[in-house]
């Protein structure tokens, strides 16, 4: 799809999950056009990254089926890969379009993600401002990874300043094509989440308890509001 730079064909020859898999987690990789989201997802994924799409309809249009599937809806495409973590747990990585016209994705499509990686290209840092703003606004924890295209021309401190990134948000270098490098980025995010969760647990000891029984997601309706 032209709008996010991916043009992946449908799956051929699937690799099934283990029969014991019963809990899937999500991490979102977000960034501007051509920054290497699909490359990063692909370098750590156990399956070739797949592409799928969602149809978003505006308020009220869902009641008219022809309208909902018709010209008044918007199609957004995204890539994903997966990593089997254990007998029961599997992690899905989503390469999310970071452009402004996809703002509505943040609160809907990827709700429930553990956190996000903002992938930046220092030649086009402004492409990531919007994504960072949305993540901050939504309260989604994230780290920033600079995908190195050749010799870096800026220090990470200069990048941090240009992005107006607060000191608590980790900023790392990576090579999205390299599996070990991609792995380190994900580990950095999980460590950041752990530090945040520990700080929260220290502040509110009673709030951090074991997960409850599996439950259906609270809302996944795509309409703006129900008519």
């Amino acid at each position, binding site marked *: *799809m032209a709008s996010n730079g991916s043009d992946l064909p449908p799956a051929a020859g699937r690799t099934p999950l283990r029969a014991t898999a019963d809990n899937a*987690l999500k991490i979102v990789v977000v960034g501007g056009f051509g920054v290497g989201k699909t490359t990063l997802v692909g370098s750590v994924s156990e399956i070739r990254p797949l592409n799928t799409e969602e149809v*978003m309809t505006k308020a009220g249009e869902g009641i008219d*089926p022809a309208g909902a599937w018709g010209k008044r809806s918007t199609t957004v495409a995204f890539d994903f890969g997966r990593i089997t973590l254990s007998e029961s747990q599997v992690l899905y990585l989503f390469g999310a379009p970071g452009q402004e016209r996809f703002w509505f994705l943040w609160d809907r499509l990827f709700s*429930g993600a553990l956190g996000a990686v903002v992938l930046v290209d220092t030649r086009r840092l402004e492409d990531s401002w919007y994504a960072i703003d949305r993540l901050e606004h939504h309260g989604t924890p994230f780290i920033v990874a600079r995908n190195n295209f050749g010799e870096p021309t800026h220090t990470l401190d200069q990048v941090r300043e240009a992005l107006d990134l607060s000191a608590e948000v980790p900023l790392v270098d990576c090579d999205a094509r390299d599996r070990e490098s991609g792995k380190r980025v994900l*580990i950095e995010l999980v*460590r950041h*989440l752990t530090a*945040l969760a520990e700080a929260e647990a220290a502040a509110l000891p009673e709030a951090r308890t*074991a997960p409850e029984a599996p439950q259906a997601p609270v809302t996944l309706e795509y309409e703006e509001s129900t008519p």
Partner: protein
Amino acid sequence: MNAGPVLPGRDDDPDRLYTITRGRSRSPENAFDLVTLLVAEREPAPGMQSEHVRILRMCEAPTAVVEVAAELALPVSVVKILLGDLLETGAITARHPRFAPTKARLPDLDTLKQVLHGLQRL
């Protein structure tokens, strides 16, 4: 929001989507996350809609909603409608994500520890 471009090579003809979903455009409320894992509980029955048959074949091993959508080359919301049919009749069961971030913003420490160990083993 303007209508987005249609993926090349995909059949996004509204008439076709209308037919596949038998005119329905809303996925079942609260039924599926993008990564809800689906497991087939029975063999496809004769005369079943071809998409339902493909889903049941795929879900012989646990399969996430997004993977079904990618495999069928159909939008996620269309797939959720089809999955809703199968869930309703007991042909599939759903394993929902245990992490419910709408209640607590951060995942619990046990989950994070397991994710970290899993990533380190890669």
